[in-house]
């Protein structure tokens, strides 16, 4: 069930220095999140689409991921246009849709899609382990990086354990429904996951201690900034400046 759908590929983006990708994803996301003008937001979506194109990811799967975000966006569309006071533009029965409400919804829709697309293109295209090393080289605290790596390592093991528990329940004719028995069963499964995780953590720690672990972590990975990385970083830098310009340049 768990997989890193986009992490393994051989596109120009996949080959970029992970540190550059993380930094640029961060800057682009933050800048996009605070945009207010449509030309700027549309340019942000364009940039995100260019990145997706360059990463050569399967379009169908990217769209499937966007569905999740847009589910939440839909929730806002269902409410905001009808409650936002402003110039009325549409009327459906007693509901009056305002121009300002629709504008805000459109802005949110474009922004969230741009940010998620950029995240998919730049960050989801690296294995989580690589992200961990990149964050280490970007000077995030060691503890946080190793917490991330350790969590990542064991989600797959624990997910398999959960599937086993769920299968074991199913073969004894457990059929989930809206009742106390169901919730109790799930609560016990979750409790069992925690108990097993804790026992496993103890064994993992023991195994680490047996190999001389005394609380210090080391990182073996080095990244090399290549000439193509310089080219990409200039292109990314320029695109960020254009994006800023579209938002903050005085309108003539």
């Amino acid at each position, binding site marked *: 069930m768990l997989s*890193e759908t986009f992490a393994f590929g051989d596109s120009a983006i996949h080959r970029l220095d992970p540190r550059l990708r993380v930094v640029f994803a961060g800057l682009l*996301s*933050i800048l996009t*999140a605070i945009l207010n003008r449509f030309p700027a937001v549309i340019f942000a979506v364009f940039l995100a689409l260019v990145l997706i194109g360059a990463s050569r990811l399967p379009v169908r799967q990217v769209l499937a*991921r*966007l569905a*999740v975000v847009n589910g*939440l966006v839909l*929730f806002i569309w269902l*409410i*905001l246009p009808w*409650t936002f006071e402003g110039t009325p533009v549409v009327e459906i029965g007693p509901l009056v849709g305002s121009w300002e*409400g629709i504008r*805000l919804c459109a802005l949110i829709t*474009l*922004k*969230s*899609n*741009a*940010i*998620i697309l950029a*995240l998919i293109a730049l*960050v*989801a295209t690296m294995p*989580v382990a690589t*992200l961990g090393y990149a964050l280490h080289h970007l000077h995030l605290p060691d*503890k*946080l990086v*190793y*917490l*991330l790596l*350790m*969590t*990542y*390592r*064991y*989600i797959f093991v624990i*997910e398999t354990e*959960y599937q086993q528990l769920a299968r074991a329940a199913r073969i004894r004719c457990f059929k989930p429904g*809206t009742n*106390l028995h*169901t919730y*109790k069963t*799930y*609560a*016990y*499964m*979750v*409790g069992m*996951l*925690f*108990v097993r*995780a*804790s026992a496993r*953590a103890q064994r*993992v*720690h023991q195994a*680490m201690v047996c190999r001389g672990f005394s*609380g210090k*972590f080391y990182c073996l990975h080095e990244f090399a900034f290549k000439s193509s990385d310089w080219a990409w970083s200039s292109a990314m830098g320029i695109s960020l400046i254009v994006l800023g310009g579209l938002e903050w340049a005085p309108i003539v």
Partner: protein
Amino acid sequence: MHISEGVLSAPVLAGGAAFAVAGIAVGLKKLDNNRIPQAGILAAAFFVASLVHVPIGPSSMHLILNGIVGLLMGWAAFPVIAVALVLQAILFQFGGITSLGVNTIIMAGPAVLGYYLFTPFIARGHTTAMAGAFACGFTAVLVSALIAAAALMLTGEAFLEVSAALVAAHIVVMIIEGIITMFCVAFLKKVQPSMLSIG
């Protein structure tokens, strides 16, 4: 529960990020290097458990479990939840980079609150402990929803109705999380009571 990208205003995102960094810093400080494996593997269990879907009527919900994470981890809930959110963002794009701070506060704030408010009850007799555990699961989701609503309201008054709908939509979730937390604590008290005093 989380707020998607592109919704919140810059000051709210920045404020959320600042509080989250502070919370994570406290959590990491309280987490000895030798307990990183423990925290990481429990974080993995929390991550997997939060993918579990339980039915409600014709629909279903995924578990949130921040109440129980608070009881198990105390302040370490901050880095643990932040890491789980990063993994959700990378593996499924549930949320992105800019709302990470706010979403960490939404999930981890109530976890730590629950830890302080309800841990004393958990240690007591069966009925008190069960009531405390239910209240912990219920309150954690309630406070999460309230923080999310506050973040929306601080972004703009226009989000009043959206915020109200968000809280309302989570009332059933609160009850179910309360029930799940109650049974889960009962399970842990029987099977591995030492886990509930971690913190």
